[in-house]
């Protein structure tokens, strides 16, 4: 789960990670009031959406008076913001963060993440901040400083010093400030079960303060049960409504651009099914992963979501039962078809636990489901039927 910048900064502030002074606004009037109460001469007006690239897309604007803050807010709120991560439709801006400007001496990058190759957390830093850090990593990997963090010892002072030296911070006071900042960020990561905590840019102000000018926090969904206060920060507006509905049935649903609806169990098989559909010239319209634990009711409601998609010209059901039983799938499919009028062809390939019962249920139902013996036949058939049904 991702947090908005303003939420992440509130978390940072409570852990002692320095952030600029600011406030949240939902209307232009509120934005102007926030600017006035903050004081100062320059303010940043920042769109609160879950996507990177806001600066380039016009989602971060500077204002030199509270009235200019008002005007920026009026043009940003309620309008879609398009960045390279939002897709062409963009994301509607519903909230703004108004911050008091600060005088920047230098911009760096600082982040904490999980290193899959060492199974530890890792602190990353770079002197080059405020830029596409992924590009820096690709172009000149030596510019990325890395500290592996032992889960028993935690982030050690010598490690924070090494990063500070790498960022050209010298002297007792600067080192202490950097160490406190990094330790606090690491504490946020560990105590709140984050998967990413990223500050880009981290700025050193002319007053010698370290501030997180931007903040990205992603939380480990599996650990949200330990953090009900953070789970409550979820912004449902940021999620695809159909994907959210599927999630409420404990299933995962992904919307795509093609015309073949797909119901599969397991992420690996789902990706492989998408690969084989494309290999045979088709394009998936969506993907429904029913996972392992779903019951008939959940399969039914999920299958209804899939059928509701107007783009769907044919449906492929590719199930290899393990924990999931094929008869559960078959009953769920039939339950959905009783409630939704659906004319497009259905191709089913069932294998695994209780496969005989599942096939029997489908065969006896008389709904005319085309059965396939294996994955290749299933993919070829559904691609052909979808093409025929699109003419």
């Amino acid at each position: 789960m991702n947090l908005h910048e303003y939420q992440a900064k509130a978390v940072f502030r409570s852990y002692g990670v320095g952030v600029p002074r600011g406030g949240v606004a939902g209307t232009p009037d509120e934005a102007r009031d926030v600017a006035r109460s903050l004081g100062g001469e320059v303010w940043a007006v920042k769109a609160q959406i879950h996507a990177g690239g806001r600066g380039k897309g016009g989602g971060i604007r500077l204002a030199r008076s509270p009235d200019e803050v008002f005007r920026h807010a009026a043009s940003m709120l309620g309008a879609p913001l398009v960045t390279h991560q939002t897709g062409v439709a963009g994301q509607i801006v519903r909230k703004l963060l108004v911050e008091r400007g600060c005088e920047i001496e230098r911009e760096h990058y600082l982040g904490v993440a999980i290193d899959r190759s060492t199974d530890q957390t890792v602190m990353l830093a770079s002197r080059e901040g405020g830029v596409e850090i992924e590009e820096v990593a690709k172009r000149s990997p030596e510019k990325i400083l890395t500290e592996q963090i032992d889960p028993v010892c935690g982030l050690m002072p010598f490690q924070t010093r090494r990063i500070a030296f790498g960022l050209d911070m010298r002297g007792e006071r600067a080192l202490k400030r950097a160490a406190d900042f990094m330790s606090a960020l690491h504490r946020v990561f560990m105590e709140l079960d984050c998967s990413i905590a990223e500050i880009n840019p981290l700025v050193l102000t002319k007053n010698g303060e370290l501030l997180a000018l931007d903040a990205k926090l992603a939380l480990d969904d599996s650990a949200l049960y330990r953090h009900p206060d953070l789970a409550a920060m979820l912004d449902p507006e940021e999620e695809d409504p159909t994907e959210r509905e599927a999630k409420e049935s404990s299933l995962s649903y992904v919307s795509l651009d093609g015309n073949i609806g797909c119901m599969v169990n397991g992420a690996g098989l789902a990706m492989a099914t998408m690969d084989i559909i494309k290999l045979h010239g088709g394009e998936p319209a969506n993907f429904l992963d029913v996972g392992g634990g779903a019951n008939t009711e959940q399969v039914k409601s999920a299958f209804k979501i899939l059928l509701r998609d107007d783009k769907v010209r044919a449906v492929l059901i590719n199930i290899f039962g393990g924990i999931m039983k094929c008869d559960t799938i078959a009953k769920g499919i039939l339950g959905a078809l009783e409630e939704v009028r659906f004319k497009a062809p259905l191709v089913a390939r069932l294998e695994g636990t209780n496969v005989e019962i599942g096939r029997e249920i489908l065969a006896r139902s008389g709904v005319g489901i085309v059965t396939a013996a294996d994955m290749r036949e299933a993919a070829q058939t559904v691609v052909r039927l979808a093409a025929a049904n699109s003419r």
Partner: protein
Amino acid sequence: MKPRKPSFVWRPRTLDEGAMSILIDENTRVVCQGITGQAGAFHTRQCLDYGTKVVAGVSPGKAGMRVEGVPVFDAVADAVDATGANASMIFVPAPFAADAVLEAHASGLRLIACITEGIPTLDMIKVKRALRSTPAVLIGPNCPGVISPGKCKIGIMPGYIHSPGTVAVISRSGTLTYEVVHQLTRLGIGQSTCIGIGGDTVVGSAFVDLLPRFEDDSGTTAIALIGEIGGRAEQDAASFIRAHVSKPVVAFVSGKTAPRGKRMGHAGAIISGGGGTAAEKIEAFRQAGVTVAESPADVGETVAAVIGSGRR
């Protein structure tokens, strides 16, 4: 503070030499942690039916019960003392699963298969740290488990699709593993041991931790490896295969056409070297002399062709 490097120095104990499988065999005695839950009970039955010696269950506070005829104990140590259990199969709910793994380890079990899905990543980081440099092998979490067909099944994979033989299967996926095993069996190609290592960010055993065992196992003649996009596990496997594996390897990488999801932040991509794409992994395998199947429907046939021609 130095990052842990995968250990390539493992050598089988003399006892294992000549065994036709790795990790488990017909003498493996299994304790099921979380046996009183729905999934634990159901799969204990399935494993018993397959012929696995499930000798004990553990559910704190429920000692004295029986589930599917299997005696239940309060602690793993009690189960080990009473039944000689030497491997664990874990179905304990996610919030308590890390504790279950460490209890199994503290009770001397050498093989721990954790089926549980949704364990917090930071819990797993601590578990991995605790198991580091110990002889315990953790498979999973969030995985189907491990099976040596005809001998022992520890996990949730459907038993009937497997057949005994000499091709090893190792995979990050669950159901896609079944798909591949099913293809092999239909072509008359049996399996020595099939392992689903799990799809989580942090897994107990990576490809590189298990490949040495397959290389050393006299009962394995070829290896089918199923990877997917994300991380560097496949690239690490390719490097290891290139340097240390003499047996033929066939690979498939799923997610070649997966759309790049909306992401937040780039820290994850940076540490994986900016990569993790299917193309990069496939290229690494080809460089290592691994035969890569183009379609998920072709993995079985590709293995057949490779075994038939004896090339790698």
